[in-house]
């Protein structure tokens, strides 16, 4: 089955993905910070028994092969730095065929249910809710009338729900004061926005995550409604900024667009930051290119962007792995995909 992020999503010129995460804990067990290894094993067995094995594969992180872990990082089931693989004997991961739905045990809370879709697609909430309800019907979930679903992290108590939109905003980022203004606007909806990476190679990626904040005082419906209003605002603003930049500085942007494509299409070595920067220029001028020489769909561009952002095993100075080798592999992968698109 095709992996979830290779499908064509709505508004995928701006929104790379939509994700819904729901956390739950089980009565009778302490929360993770106060759960010893033996109890943790018992917790994993209890939850494992409630997971529908006709849909989900996977299991204990301790027995997961490295290749599987790499694939799960690339498909965003595991965090991009693989930090979730620390203490693997206390964790388990389950995922469906295309990895659009997953259940993690032992990552912050007892259970983290996640549903993901390419582009702008809030139906991920229903997918996550369905999975959560299935577990709620089979397990004794920690719930209080006053505080809702109880969690170790009190910031998540209540609905235990987070909606996240990953967005590429090269034009707003290039507009003076654009991100500051957007941050204000996001705050007015009581949501938050933060860069995909605050430091390192991807710090200037122009990719941001827009996330819900409130889990108390609001219904799930209200969270989704505000999120849809907000993301509509963001999409319109980014498109307006692209139009402004592409029309006011057409010659310069067209030049950058062509150069960026040339670099990606024919380079032999490329760093993650250079690749992401080039993709930003492609994104910026994509809809205004009337030359027709460059053939790269939004879907291809999104896939490439996510491949770079969630590239597993990217070497760091600490790891001492070869930068040249990883840059060659990356460049080769990009060339192959762009050649295929032509």
């Amino acid at each position: 089955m095709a992996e979830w992020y290779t499908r064509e999503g709505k508004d995928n010129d701006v929104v790379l993905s939509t994700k819904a995460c729901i956390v739950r804990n089980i009565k009778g067990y302490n929360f993770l910070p106060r759960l010893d290894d033996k109890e943790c094993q018992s917790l994993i067995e209890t939850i494992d028994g409630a997971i529908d094995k006709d849909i989900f594969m996977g299991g204990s992180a301790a027995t997961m092969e490295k290749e599987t872990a790499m694939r799960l990082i690339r498909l965003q089931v595991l965090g991009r730095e693989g930090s979730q693989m620390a203490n693997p004997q206390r964790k388990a991961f389950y995922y469906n065929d295309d990895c659009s739905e997953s259940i993690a045990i032992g990552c912050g809370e007892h259970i983290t249910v996640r549903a993901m879709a390419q582009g702008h697609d809030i139906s991920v909430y229903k997918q996550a809710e369905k999975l959560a309800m299935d577990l709620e019907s089979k397990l004794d979930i920690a719930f209080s009338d006053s505080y809702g679903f109880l969690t170790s992290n009190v910031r998540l108590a209540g609905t235990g729900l987070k909606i996240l939109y990953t967005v590429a905003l090269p034009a707003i980022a290039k507009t003076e004061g654009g991100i500051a203004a957007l941050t204000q606007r996001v705050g007015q909806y009581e949501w938050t926005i933060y860069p995909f990476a605050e430091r390192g190679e991807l710090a200037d990626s122009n990719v941001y995550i827009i996330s819900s904040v409130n889990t108390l005082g609001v219904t799930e419906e209200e969270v989704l409604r505000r999120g849809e209003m907000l993301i509509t605002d963001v999409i319109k603003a980014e498109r307006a900024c692209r139009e402004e930049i592409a029309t006011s500085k057409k010659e310069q942007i067209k030049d950058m667009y062509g150069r960026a494509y040339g670099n990606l299409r024919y380079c032999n070595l490329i760093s993650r930051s250079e690749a992401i920067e080039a993709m930003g220029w492609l994104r910026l001028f994509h809809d205004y290119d009337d030359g027709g020489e460059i053939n790269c769909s939004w879907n291809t561009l999104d896939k490439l962007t996510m491949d770079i952002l969630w590239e597993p095993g990217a070497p760091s100075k600490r790891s001492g792995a070869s930068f040249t080798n990883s840059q060659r592999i990356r460049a080769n992968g990009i060339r192959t995909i762009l050649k295929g698109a032509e």
Partner: protein
Amino acid sequence: MRCERCGKELTNRIIKINGVTYCDNCARLMGYDRYLREPSDILGNPFSPLDQIASSLMQMSELDFGNSTLTCPKCGMTLREFENEGRVGCIECYNTFNDNIVREMFKQQGNSEYAGRLPNQSAETNTTSKEVEKVSRKELESGPAKEVEVKASEPAKTETQEPEKQPEKKPEKGGLTIDQLKKADLGMLSDEDLEKGIKLAAEVEEYILASRLRDELKGRKEGENNG
């Protein structure tokens, strides 16, 4: 947006450090002075690192580490551990540290009352994303957005170019002021006044008042359900 440490509404400057949003004051208290300074401040003062250490030491007295003797009888977590980590150890902690947890919830979210779905019950939600129509900039500027319905109280939808000024925290039309709420006999207030009061109290960080109003409203609702 609120400061994630003290819960104060952010109006002037947003300081984000390691993914956590702080107000000026909290950033200073946490020792992140360098994020508050302009480059010229540092260049102009050759002893700035010494100043920074001295001011941090002076401000140590303002830090509140809470009552460390309060301990959860079930999991053994102390209040200090909760305050440091922001995590509780078990369900019983919610009873043991109730006041501190409610305060934390108000700081983070301006609310501590659950409004979501019950376990094993579906939320009534519309989960169809409408594709945002591609319109030209001129069209966008000339007309209101067609796709999304906006409530009067919600922020209007325009471009993000110009940040709007946050409205001042005043009681909603017809609502009571904080002083009036503090002095009022809560039993005499309408449900609507209580709801408005909770919002207002949370906005001005009167968390104890907000809790009292919330408990009054909750008591009424439970009374209605039982009776």
